[in-house]
């Protein structure tokens, strides 16, 4: 491989370097120049975390071979403002709270800067369109669009620059618009996430993952990989010195597959090498002999007698069953004028935080094993790892790096153990940065669920009884399933006072990608079923959907499904506010569709249109385009 010599200008400084010919501009900026403001969120041009200017044009640096930038002027987030200063766009992002996890923000600031450079008068539709190549998972984009419009006004002189400063706080911080303390580090691209960190003498790790959903591991031969020049170590479950097993509730998951693999993408072995490419090449030299086992992919089939068993400790494949009983459902249904019965299913969902999993581990001079990662649960990870690596707790340290979005998906210790083992085996810092594909295949997902629902009601809309039976696909490992089932059970029948209920939530093992924590932690799946039932009941009884909810809502003094007596309750006010804000057209929810009087109007968001910048008189006149 011959080196590639490139000369270019980066942030107004001349740069001459020899580098590898296959490097992308993103790799060159991050690795050769240590400009880590541009991130790698996907490596496939989808997310925009890597946006930089090349000769004044915004491009995705993960899609640009570095040779293409030779002779060009490159501008990165680090070059937008003088050190210690922020541009109006950056200040506006700070002001509106547009940066949350911050991982998309350097790219988002670059896209906003590009939009306003291209058209300082860009309207909101054009701004949205020009930011279309950048994804954010925290904000829902509202704060970001607000920031761009604010910056546009300041740049145009229509708004005083002082408007970008923090609002004055009066006697109380409550109700005051305060800015995030860490936002300047995010809007300037200076904040170092785990993948941005470098340590001297650091190795790069790559992971060999299972191609099978369920298979016995007959043998793993790492000798050829270990013999490769540049490979520092290869680790497998054999390298675990203590008691292997982690999980948020049940410790059923080994650091790397032990004896068998239970889902596609499960870690089987890992290589730490001098560089990423060597580590990747070494993976192909590891020989694993599998014996495929029948897999189980349907949660209902997982519960059938004779189904393949995923974990020996759970012969019925049940991770957790949570029953809740209150009153007498038979009597409740007998008292009902109307009994509705239906099934609801929800699908698997990926968190898709912009920051793929990343981490560094090293052993410090006092033999403390240190793991740096965007873990959402470092204290629990620390305790689990001390057992796994058989070290006292004071010899295990976890440092939480900035979390580039988690949403529950970074609660599971799916890679920190491998990093620790490699650092212990080599006594060198080891870094592992997941690819987006790896993040998708190896991290936990939202539980797919099936709910069978039976609801009894009187003619005036009062719920007399509910039977709620939820079956969730827990996937190959327990992770947060137990807690998710518990929360789903507690919230199952919604914020409604139900005298008679029978609730069962069950998560089962399958050979699918593991399910785990995800925003609402089981609440969403249950509420989808309950609120759908409420609307269908309103329709069947000819009632207004707000009215049927008011008839059943929990009030002060109500007892929850788990018999807690409420001393505060706010659903009445929530319903009033929602009804008013939506300008609700009162009446039973019979199909009126597009004839409803409460569609559109202020505070509703019009569908996104494309082509705002195509200079058409029709567009200027506000005529709605078919596209």
């Amino acid at each position, binding site marked *: 491989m011959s080196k590639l010599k490139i000369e270019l200008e980066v942030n107004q400084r001349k740069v001459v370097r020899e580098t590898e010919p296959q490097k992308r501009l993103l790799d060159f900026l991050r690795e050769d120049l240590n400009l880590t403001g541009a991130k790698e969120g996907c490596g496939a041009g989808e997310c925009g975390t890597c946006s930089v200017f090349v000769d004044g044009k*915004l*491009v995705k640096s993960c899609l640009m071979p570095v040779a293409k930038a030779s002779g060009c002027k490159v501008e990165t987030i680090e070059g937008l403002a003088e050190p210690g200063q922020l541009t109006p766009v950056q200040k506006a992002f700070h002001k509106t709270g547009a940066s949350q996890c911050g991982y998309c923000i350097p790219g988002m600031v670059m896209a906003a800067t590009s939009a306003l450079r291209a058209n300082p008068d860009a309207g909101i539709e054009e701004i949205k369109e020009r930011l279309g190549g950048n994804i954010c998972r925290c904000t829902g984009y509202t704060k970001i669009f607000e920031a761009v419009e604010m910056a546009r006004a300041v740049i145009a002189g229509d708004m005083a620059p002082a408007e970008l400063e923090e609002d004055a706080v009066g006697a109380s911080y409550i109700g005051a618009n305060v800015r995030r303390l860490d936002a300047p580090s995010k809007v300037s691209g200076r904040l170092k996430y785990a993948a941005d960190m470098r340590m001297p003498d650091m190795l790069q790790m790559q992971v060999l993952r299972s191609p099978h959903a369920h298979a016995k591991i007959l043998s793993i031969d790492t000798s050829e990989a270990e013999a490769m020049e540049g490979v520092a170590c290869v680790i497998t479950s054999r390298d675990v010195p203590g008691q292997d097993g982690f999980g948020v509730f049940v410790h059923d998951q080994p650091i790397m597959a032990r004896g068998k693999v239970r889902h596609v993408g499960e870690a089987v072995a890992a290589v730490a090498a001098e560089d990423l490419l060597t580590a990747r090449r070494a993976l192909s030299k590891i020989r694993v002999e599998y014996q495929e086992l029948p897999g189980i992919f349907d949660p209902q089939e997982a519960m059938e007698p004779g189904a393949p068993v995923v974990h020996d400790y759970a012969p019925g494949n049940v991770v957790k069953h949570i029953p809740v009983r209150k009153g007498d459902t038979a009597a409740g249904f007998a008292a009902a004028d109307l009994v509705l019965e239906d099934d609801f299913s929800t699908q698997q969902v990926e968190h898709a935080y912009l920051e793929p999993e990343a981490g560094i581990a090293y052993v410090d001079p006092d033999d403390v094993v240190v793991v740096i990662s965007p873990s959402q649960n470092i204290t629990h990870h620390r305790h689990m790892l001390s057992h796994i690596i058989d070290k006292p707790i004071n010899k295990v340290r976890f440092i939480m790096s900035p979390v580039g979005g988690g949403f529950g998906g970074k609660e599971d210790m799916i890679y920190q153990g491998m990093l620790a083992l490699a650092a212990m085996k080599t006594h060198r810092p080891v870094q592992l940065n997941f690819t987006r594909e790896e993040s998708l295949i190896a991290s936990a997902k939202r539980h797919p669920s099936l709910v069978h629902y039976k609801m009894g009601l009187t003619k005036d809309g009062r719920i007399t009884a509910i039977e709620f039976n939820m079956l969730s696909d827990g996937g190959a490992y327990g992770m947060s399933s137990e807690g998710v089932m518990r929360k789903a059970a507690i919230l199952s029948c919604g914020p409604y006072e139900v005298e008679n209920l029978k609730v069962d939530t069950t998560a089962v093992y399958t050979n699918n990608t593991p399910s785990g924590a995800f925003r609402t932690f089981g609440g969403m799946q249950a509420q989808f079923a309950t609120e759908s039932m409420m609307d269908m009941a309103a329709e069947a009884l000819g009632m207004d959907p707000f009215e049927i909810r008011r008839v059943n809502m929990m009030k002060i003094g109500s007892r929850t499904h788990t018999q807690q007596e409420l001393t505060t309750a706010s659903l009445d006010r929530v319903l009033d506010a929602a009804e008013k804000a939506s300008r609700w057209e009162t009446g039973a929810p019979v199909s009126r569709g597009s004839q409803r009087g409460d569609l559109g109007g202020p505070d509703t968001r019009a569908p996104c249109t494309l082509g705002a910048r195509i200079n058409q008189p029709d567009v200027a006149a506000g005529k709605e385009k078919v596209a």
Partner: protein
Amino acid sequence: MLTCDTYHMPTGLTEALTLWSEAPAGSRLVSGATDILPWAREGRAGDVHLPAMIDVTRVPEMSGYRVEGGRVRLGANTVYQDFLSKDDLRRFLPCMPYCAIWFADDQIREVATLAGNLVNASPVADGTPPVAALNGEVELTRLADGKLARRLVPVGDFILGPGKTDLAEDEIVTAVILDDATGYGGSFQKVGQRRSLVISVACCAALVKTDASGTKFEDLRLALGGVGPRPIRLTEVEEALRGAEISHGAIAKAADLAASKVASRSRKEYRRDVVVGFVRAAIEEALGNQPGAPVEIRGAGETADV
């Protein structure tokens, strides 16, 4: 992960063709590179090592554009963003801005080329229907006895099937040659999973020109993508409407005729339904975009809801 031994950036066409003809087996020609990098990843081609990558974006003979005899010759290095940002290209090729706005996003459009899109020969490429509607030809160049030898192939013949083209081993696409459609109204319709950065499920390009009175179709071009292995030019529909009164009834009839022409590997019924709405919306939008006085669509009927 994509790796290579050498990355060439030739600065002349002869140099590029020489490098290409002498490149070790397995080498790849690169234009915008926005497809090759995502291709060499897990789940697709995986880790790929190429002996050489030959990047043609600095070949001056393949850059720029000019109009000759009612045809627009776009150098192969013309990127999608040019169709939005260059006023004369917008005028010459009225359906291309609408295609471009649906193509990927602003940042990818700055580097992704129309020629590269055609060479990839995806059945759902955004670029193929408008090129077919503009009677596009692909210019292929190779070295024969040290001299440049060119041939022109209509886009419908150039694309042989998914990922397959008529490009010979030693050839490079050097230009895309299209009708100068100044005066036409243009449109592009697309459905995909989301608005930005998405591959089409199906797409449709239209060009419409009315007679001087604005009541009759003088000329019409319609092409569909994503409904078969190659772009489909709806010549029967075009003929049916040429000279016809501009009315909702005529457009609806044309849309039904278009749907009967649809074939595809998957989701045939869905695509058929989409095509009916597409063709109506495309003709209506193109009529609305025709430069000059607004065109009234006569007769009963609502505009398409897509």
